């Protein structure tokens, strides 16, 4: 059984004058110990989708659809049930989660407090041992326990955030641009640690990022989102090597390559469509070089591309079943 199954998930921001369709019709399955990366540019709805599942969106957002976590729908849970699942079962690391720490208390004390909220009455010694254990998992020295947040560097803070998210040994770890603000060397250090950690703790991981290289180096599956819709999803070795959706192709071409010849760098012309207007056809059609009349009038559904085992799905009229001979 899938650990998390998202079915027909929609998020709409209700504003005074208009409605913004931030996520539309998203379907996604996370098998245990998967590492799924959701990539997309700003406005693609990748963060909204994740926060929607965890019910962390502001009140102006209206969500419909199901998000089944181990069979029970997160959307239908009462607040008490939900708070049991959050952090205990599903933990989140944000881009700036270090801002959540109080500047006037020691790191260790704050971590103890988090532990006590979830498991009141645990003896101090046990908590302390658990925290030291977590420090070792994320490559921090025990000394950090006695430090204040301002004494840590950005990379150390992000490690603390990860340690904090693991404190209750969750099954699912959601990382929302968790390494974006870090430098390449630090980012790569932390990503390496996360991969090791996943193996050790048998975690399932959902990475949300705009950086395709992060997904390619740390995930086994990828979901490509654009303007609130899933464009393409499948295994990293399929989607990022031979992308089938024109958007994925365009996105990958937009990254200058580091190796080989300096080929012409090509972006995707145009800009993100207005999300408050429901498109009649494919959301990418206005920017797509291959768009046909069908693309402009009919909404493409996610269809299987490739064979059964690949579980590769593409939402494009031009990629139907096996007949994807177009370049």
């Amino acid at each position, binding site marked *: 059984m899938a650990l998390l199954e998202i079915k027909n998930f929609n998020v709409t921001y209700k504003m005074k004058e208009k409605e913004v369709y931030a996520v539309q019709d998203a379907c996604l399955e996370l098998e245990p110990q998967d590492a799924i990366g959701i990539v997309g540019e700003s406005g693609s709805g990748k963060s909204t989708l994740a926060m929607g599942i965890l019910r962390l969106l502001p009140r102006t957002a209206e969500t419909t659809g199901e998000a089944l976590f181990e069979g029970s729908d997160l959307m239908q849970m009462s607040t008490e049930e939900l708070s049991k699942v959050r952090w205990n079962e599903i933990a989140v690391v944000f881009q700036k989660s270090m801002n959540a720490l109080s500047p006037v208390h020691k790191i260790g004390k704050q971590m103890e407090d988090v532990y006590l909220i979830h498991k009141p009455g645990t003896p101090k010694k046990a908590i302390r041992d658990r925290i030291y254990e977590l420090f070792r998992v994320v490559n921090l020295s025990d000394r950090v326990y006695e430090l204040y947040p301002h004494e840590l560097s950005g990379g150390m803070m992000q490690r603390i955030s990860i340690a904090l998210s693991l404190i209750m040994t969750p099954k699912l770890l959601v990382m929302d641009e968790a390494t974006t603000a870090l*430098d390449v*060397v630090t*980012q790569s250090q932390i990503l390496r640690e996360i991969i090791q950690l996943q193996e050790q703790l048998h975690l399932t991981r959902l990475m949300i990022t705009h950086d395709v290289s992060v997904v390619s180096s740390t995930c086994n599956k990828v979901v490509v989102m654009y303007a609130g819709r899933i464009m393409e999803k499948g295994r990293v070795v399929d989607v*990022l*090597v031979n992308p089938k959706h024109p958007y994925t192709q365009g996105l990958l071409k937009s990254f200058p390559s580091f190796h080989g010849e300096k080929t012409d760098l090509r972006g995707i012309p145009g800009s993100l469509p207005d999300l408050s207007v429901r498109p009649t056809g494919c959301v990418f059609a206005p920017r797509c070089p291959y768009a046909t009349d069908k693309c402009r009038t009919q909404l493409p559904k996610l269809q299987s591309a490739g064979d059964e085992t690949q579980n590769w799905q593409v939402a494009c009229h031009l990629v139907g079943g096996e007949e994807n001979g177009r370049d």
Partner: protein
Amino acid sequence: MGATEHSEYVIEVDQVKKWYVQKKVQKKDGKVQRRQQIKAVDGVSFQLKRGETLGVIGESGCGKSTLGRLLIQLEPPTGGDIRLFGESSQALLKKDPLKFRRSCQMIFQNPFDTFDPRYRLKKILMDPMKLHGIGASEEERMQMVLDVLEQSGLTPAIDYVDRFPHELSGGQLQRIAILRSMLLNPTFMVADEPVSMLDVSIRADIINMLENLVKQKNTALVFISHDIATTRYISDKVAVMYLGRIVEMGPTDEVLHNPQHPYTKVLISNCASLNPLEKQEAIAIEGEPPTPIDNGPGCYFAPRCYCAEAHCSERYPELTDIGGGHFVACSCCGASGRA
């Protein structure tokens, strides 16, 4: 320095330094020091010819943005010399500030904040031209603005000039920022992370536009970025900075595909590839760059270096040519150790 307008180089940077004074610093052993020098840029030298592009890469805090601001005199340097066509830029700024500003331009990181939110684009674009006496009349200036907007694909241009900055997307704003600078026909330009705040799919167009304009107008460009692949795409030469100093510099492909300095190697090996099948072994090092205070007499990178030797912490290695204009400041690797 008797060089005049005929100097071969557009810009010559000679041991330029920027030290900030920080008051009251608590050191690791608990002692409080009253005044401390933060050496943001600590002796950087390079030269650029017309039409050449130098990419400056490094992690945050390595002083690359400070260097950019020093180059166009947004801040005065603490020491060293920057010469434009052989003439000291500080003297130029004093003698004829408008001429200096016209010849040195800068593109900033945040396109959403580059323009005063209170003015329309036509005023934003035409005021600097007026200030520098470009175009004889308002009509002529307007026509020039419309022409460059059309050429860069912002069509119909007449629709854009009456808008306010917040009505445009980041990509459009950054294009306009580049055009505004280019309207002044600068001979030297600094671009400080010009695409890092933009979405990937529009970055390429901005980079291409910048590259075309620079080539077309034969402008020397310093392109500051933390993104090695983008830098490789646009630059003729690359300089790698660590804690305020250039550790390696040379022709782009030479430096990036045959790196000599251990730091450059670390930096490059840690850039993940887009292709999941090309797994490369990243060189792992500990920690993060420290604040540049009291870096010690030795190589600044030595404490984190994976191949440091005892002599590395004694003397800072000179930036030495190891052939073909490839400079490295390391006493352990390449030819520099023997030189």
